[in-house]
């Protein structure tokens, strides 16, 4: 069913935006895709709809803006309940575990990944790489716990943690290539390797994950922009 009042303000390269799109695809909700250029000054719409952080994604439903990807995911899950599968489990304890691991991705794993991308010195990069690899091992353990032998963190179907982590797969591959390492390796994280393949091939995901070469090219430009902004002015 086409929903004329559903809009996503974001960019094709952002994993946080990808999360929102995957959730909407899972729920079969059609939406308007509004592209924000991350390499250009921020748009009026972005500044007006997310005055606190001025970041994408911003999700619009009936003209109400919602910010922060994991909060958007919960909103989508609560509003569109008639179709397909739930994103969060209904059991309170399982729900808390899903939230915990999604928060781990955002608070620990992603920052380490970001440091690896923009690391200015070899030392910075080495420290970040160790953190990222350690993170993948922790997530491999989490997968064992949550999946209970099924294909996804969410069990038979894609859930909250799958979307939170899976949205990073494109960047994980790009950054890995940059460091000449497989960040999600068969040796240390065999289950995650398998999960990554299942996730990427999923109907709701495959058109959302970007082309890796295009992302790599964008990554170089983004890194340059960030490093320039961080450089001390003389």
């Amino acid at each position, binding site marked *: 069913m086409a929903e004329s009042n559903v809009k996503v303000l974001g960019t094709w390269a952002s994993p946080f935006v990808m999360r929102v799109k995957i959730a909407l695809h899972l729920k079969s909700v059609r939406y308007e895709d509004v592209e924000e250029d991350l390499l250009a000054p921020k748009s009026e719409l972005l500044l007006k709809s997310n005055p606190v952080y001025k970041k994408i994604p911003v999700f619009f439903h009936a003209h109400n803006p919602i910010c922060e990807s994991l909060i958007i995911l919960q909103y989508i899950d609560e509003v569109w309940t008639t179709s397909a599968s739930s994103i969060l489990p209904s059991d*309170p304890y399982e729900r808390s575990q899903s939230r915990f691991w999604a928060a781990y991705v955002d608070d620990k794993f992603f920052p380490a990944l970001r440091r690896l991308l923009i690391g200015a010195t070899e030392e910075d990069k080495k420290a970040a790489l160790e953190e990222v690899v350690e993170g993948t091992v922790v997530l491999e353990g989490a997968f064992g716990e949550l999946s209970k032998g099924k294909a996804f963190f969410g069990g038979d179907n894609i859930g909250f943690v799958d979307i939170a982590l899976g949205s990073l797969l494109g960047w994980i591959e790009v950054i890995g290539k940059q460091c000449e390492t497989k960040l999600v390796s068969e040796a240390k994280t065999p289950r995650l390797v398998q999960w990554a393949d299942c996730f990427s091939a999923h109907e709701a995901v495959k058109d959302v994950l970007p082309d890796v070469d295009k992302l790599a090219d964008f990554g170089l430009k983004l890194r340059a922009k960030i490093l320039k902004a961080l450089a001390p002015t003389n």
Partner: protein
Amino acid sequence: MEDEVVLLDFWPSSFAMRVKIALGEKGIKYKCKQEDLFNKSTLLLEMNPIHKKIPVLIHNGKPISESLIILQYIDQVWNHKSPLLPSDPYQRSQALFWADYIDKKIYSIGRRVWMGKEDQEEAKEELMQCLKTLERELGDKLYFGGQNIGVVDVALVPFTTWFYSYETCGNFSIEAGCPKLVAWAKRCKENYRSVSEALPHPLQIYEYVMELKKRLGLV
């Protein structure tokens, strides 16, 4: 079968205070275990192996970590009274947004204020900006939750017991910049026993901060 509820606590922690307020609001009986953060117990390391932090809520042997996640768990399990979150999905998303904002900002900025290093002036400005943003969000409402306290009130009010420490270490007045917010904090403590019981006296927090600064070689 009776529920067994245990809270791994550290009395100065604003994050742990949040959980105590929520448990108080819901009328839940629980055991409180004090942790020594410089000498963490086996139980803590077992119940929160990833972050090794408090608070941890242990419900019938199962651990839940991260205070906002704990609050949402408590709200869902003990849904018979004092709802912490609105029932409307959009209102709920807004409440979670502001609770998350408080998480991202207040603790780390506040820490830079009381530590009193070279970035203290910058941190003071940032803190006042955040508190002013929150004050604007409160507007003319009695509480962030409307007529009653909700998750945003519970997330923020514990930090107000640290205001005296921020002010004294930073030599500034939070009330001067945010009178409505200070009034809101007073209102929470006066009207909600769960709040007044969970929050230590600001002077106790200040004593703790000074001890910590000595320990960190900052005094």
